[in-house]
């Protein structure tokens, strides 16, 4: 009868759980990893590769506190509710000591809320939402990647030095896009009260009607355009904008546009002369970073994306926190994470005790096309610490006291 089938499936599922718990001896430390591996594989798979590489490197060097690290990766389907369920399973069935990951801001925020409620540690790797560490921050949530506010401020700094007065913005119509535009406007207006925002365009995420958007932007006759679109939207925006002459003789800023995830699919049609935040992995000369790139290429036969670096740094941070705490107890780990300083391929970073944001920075440069590929030139690494608000302001932004 069908109930047998039902029973069998359930039994199999439970058996898998039981075996999962029993099979591992106590001399490994398990870390739970949740990300949208199916929803945006182009971004999350490099992240996972970077994380796995870091774990392997750490384990080869003897692990942490004499124990091997083990990463338990799960797909959240891009759904916050699913992520919460998996987090619960990772903690209670797999007995992980903490969780990390997520790319979508809403999934990150849901996990942060869960972490705060259940008093379990969550290191948000990739989500950019400012609220994660400020408005909705809590004791148990930390974030690695430079936030929307930080990256937008880096571009606003460039914008302020430019004579352009009439600005237009285009950003996907969801929280990240809105935050990115608001942060940019605020930072630019603070330095240049004389600028004017002549139009704001809000295409649906991954549903851009590029021709119409370009027409609308063109109609407002801006001096400069601030672009937040990415992925498939960016490709359409660039191609259509190039054709319709939107980028001619204008300063174009692109948030994240220089990240290989977004720039590389454009190939020889990558925009030229845009000022962008991104990741010029091919030109970074620091020995630590060179070694990271070499290891990564050896292990995965592929070049690193920004997600790879974030994944790698996430696992380094976790290992450093466990080492510093000398324990895998949540409260000890949280205390260790506060003010934790470590060396990464992208330089030294600190998890600020005041708001749990890491000081990992970003690279700002100009795009060009070389050998049929989009590249960043004339870039500089901007330290994250310089683009975070003052302590007094952070205290106002972050209600959580811990």
């Amino acid at each position, binding site marked *: *009868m*069908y*109930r047998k*089938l*039902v*029973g069998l*499936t359930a039994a*199999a*599922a439970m058996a*898998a*759980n039981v075996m999962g718990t029993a099979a591992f001896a106590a001399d490994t430390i398990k870390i739970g990893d949740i990300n949208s591996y*199916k929803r945006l*594989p*182009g971004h999350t798979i490099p992240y996972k590769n970077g994380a796995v590489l870091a774990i392997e490197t750490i384990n080869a060097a003897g692990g942490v506190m004499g124990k091997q690290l083990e990463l338990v990766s*799960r797909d959240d*389907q*891009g759904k*916050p*509710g699913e992520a*919460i*369920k998996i987090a*619960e*399973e990772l903690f*209670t069935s797999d007995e992980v000591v903490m969780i990390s990951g997520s790319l979508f*801001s*809403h999934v990150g*925020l*849901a996990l942060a*809320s*869960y972490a*705060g*409620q259940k008093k379990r540690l969550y290191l948000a790797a990739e989500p950019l939402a400012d*609220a994660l560490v400020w408005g*909705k921050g809590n004791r148990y949530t930390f974030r690695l990647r430079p936030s929307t506010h930080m990256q937008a401020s880096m571009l606003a700094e460039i914008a302020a030095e430019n004579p352009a007065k009439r600005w237009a913005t285009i950003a996907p*119509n*969801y*929280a990240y896009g*809105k935050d990115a535009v608001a942060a940019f406007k605020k930072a630019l207006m603070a330095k240049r009260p004389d600028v004017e925002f002549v139009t*704001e*365009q*809000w*295409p*649906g995420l*991954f*549903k851009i009607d590029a*021709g*119409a958007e370009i*027409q*609308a932007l063109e109609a407002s006759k801006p001096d400069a355009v601030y672009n937040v679109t990415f*992925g*498939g939207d960016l*490709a*359409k925006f660039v*191609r*259509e904008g190039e*054709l*319709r002459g939107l980028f001619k003789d204008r300063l174009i800023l692109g948030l994240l546009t220089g990240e290989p995830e977004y720039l590389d*699919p*454009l*190939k020889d049609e990558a925009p030229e002369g845009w000022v962008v935040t991104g990741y010029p992995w091919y030109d970074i000369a620091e020995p630590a970073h060179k070694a990271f790139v070499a290891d990564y290429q050896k292990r995965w036969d592929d070049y690193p994306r920004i997600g790879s670096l974030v994944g790698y740094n996430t696992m380094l941070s976790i290992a450093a926190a466990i080492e510093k705490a000398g324990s895998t107890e949540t409260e000890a780990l949280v205390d260790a994470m506060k003010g934790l300083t470590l060396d990464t391929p992208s330089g030294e970073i600190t998890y600020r005790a005041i708001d749990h944001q890491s000081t990992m920075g970003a690279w700002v440069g100009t795009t060009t096309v070389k050998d049929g590929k989009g590249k960043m030139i004339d870039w500089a690494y901007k330290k994250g610490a310089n683009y975070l608000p003052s302590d007094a302001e952070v205290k106002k932004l972050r209600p959580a006291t811990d």
Partner: protein
Amino acid sequence: MDFFVVQILTGLSNAAALFLVASGLSIIFGVTRVVNFSHGSFYMLGAFIGYSLMTVLPGFIGFWASILLAGVAVGVIGLIVEMGVLRPIYKSPELFQLVATFGVILVIQDLTLLIWGPDDLIGKRSPGFEGVVKIGDQLLPSYDLVLIFLSFLVLGGLWFLFNKTRVGILVRAATQDREMVGALGVNQSWLFSGVFFLGSALAGIGGAAQLPKGGADLLMDFNILAPVFVVVVIGGMGSIPGAFVAALIISELNVFGVQLLPQSTLVLMFVVMAVVLIFRPWGLFGRPETLGSHGSQGPPEAPLRAFSGRLWLALAAAAIALTAVPLFGGTFLQVLLADVIIACLFATSLHFILGLGGLVSFGHAATFGGGAYAAALLVQYAEAPMEMAMLFAPLAAGLLALVIGWFCVRLSGVYFAMLTLAFAQVVWSVAFQWGDVTGGDDGILGIWPSAWASGTTAYYYLVLTLGLGGIATLLFMAYTPFGYALRGGRDSALRSEAIGINVRLVQWSAFIFAGFMSGLAGALFVFAKGSIFPTELEIARSFDALIIVFLGGVQSLFGPLAGGVVFTLLQDWLSRFEYWRLFLGLMIIGIVILLPNGLVGVGQWVRNRLGAAPGKPEEEAA
């Protein structure tokens, strides 16, 4: 002036791409009555296959040959799907096929990822049309004009096919009366296959032809799905000129919407669809559906049986087993079972209108998410305790259903389904867009249970009590005079009216009651997860409930329970594997083909075979 000309032409070229895909869907629906969710996947395949072909076939001829070949290839894939997956289940209950096409979506998603990898691919430009045309001081990509030309070519070609050829006339005849065409000696299965080939090929051509405007990525399938369904419904299902006009309306509105109201683009097409359906319930060029189309395939549904003694015993045993779970099961088992119960309550509430009322809602997430949001907002702004929020949520969801239902119950069949979908999208966009109140897609956080219920076990018992209570009430209602009236209206609206039942009023009440219960499920969900986001109002959430109901078996009261248990557990279990969508898709297709009446079909099959007493559904004890 030039500006407007260019705007209009831009809209026309968008309309062209949309029309190619939508016309295929419309033809398929018109003839086979299959609501083909996998049509978006065919579009995506067309883009990927076209991309690969263009890298090997050079030049002008190579470009157009690639588009044509991509169409043929996708047509063949469509044919395989039709013959392998759909043909065995044409005799199943109406709309059952959509579950199978959902399985096809999952399979195609993972296979595409496997073959082409995760990176977005940017399309090649069309040789000879790389540049722009100058109109006054405005620039228009010349490929836009090519697309416009292509759409007229296809429109003309389809007109010729359907009006001037024998095959086309047969297809048109089949859209109007399938059985009569069959009776006249036309081999229906070949007609169906041919139509599926043509429809899928058009989707493939649409996908390949848009490459110079964008590219190929893994989100294309779902992204195109909503717009093409909207176009097909506004135009009237099965009408090619309708699809053309609707594509034009939607695209032009969008282009000017971007200009005047940049934030409106998310919801504009759904508002248009809702307005059109309210004033023209069968779309602009559509025809009223034939009466009593529900269940016209296959034998009529058997009446519900009263619960037997053994069934009562089994249910009691299941309830006791569930109550005992915290004694032997771990924390995660309780969390998982709470999810299962919430899914079952959500699906059972949909089954109440879908199975008993014959009202197939594609927008059931509106009340689920609506209830969840109502609870979350009350906690957020009135600092209400959990208990009050849980009481308020179903009432708010019921109120929402009252409004939505008032518009929807005048419609039937697929048009009813699409109007509910439109309203659900409007609700979604309110939650998404009204950031100051709802937090936009950053959602509402920190909605946790009261202290007494905050432990995993305590909350599990709360879900168990309210969830099973809700399910039991829904089942009980099926046996009340109200439930009988609802089923009467489903089986024969005319006869029900004749004996004095106000069918519309009964359906409307059922819609509200189902919304109430779905809102309760939403409230249980939000306190289990601690946060709520617009994702819970998305089309995908409505589909979850549909899949569960159909997978479980639409003709049995216990169908949604069986479906809820199996679907939730399968998903939880399979998601551990890298290519879990492939497995889940194949399993759904397998279940659908082997058990054309859903999972409960196994019980019925055994019962008929052995002539034994009704099997006791034990699914809750899983």
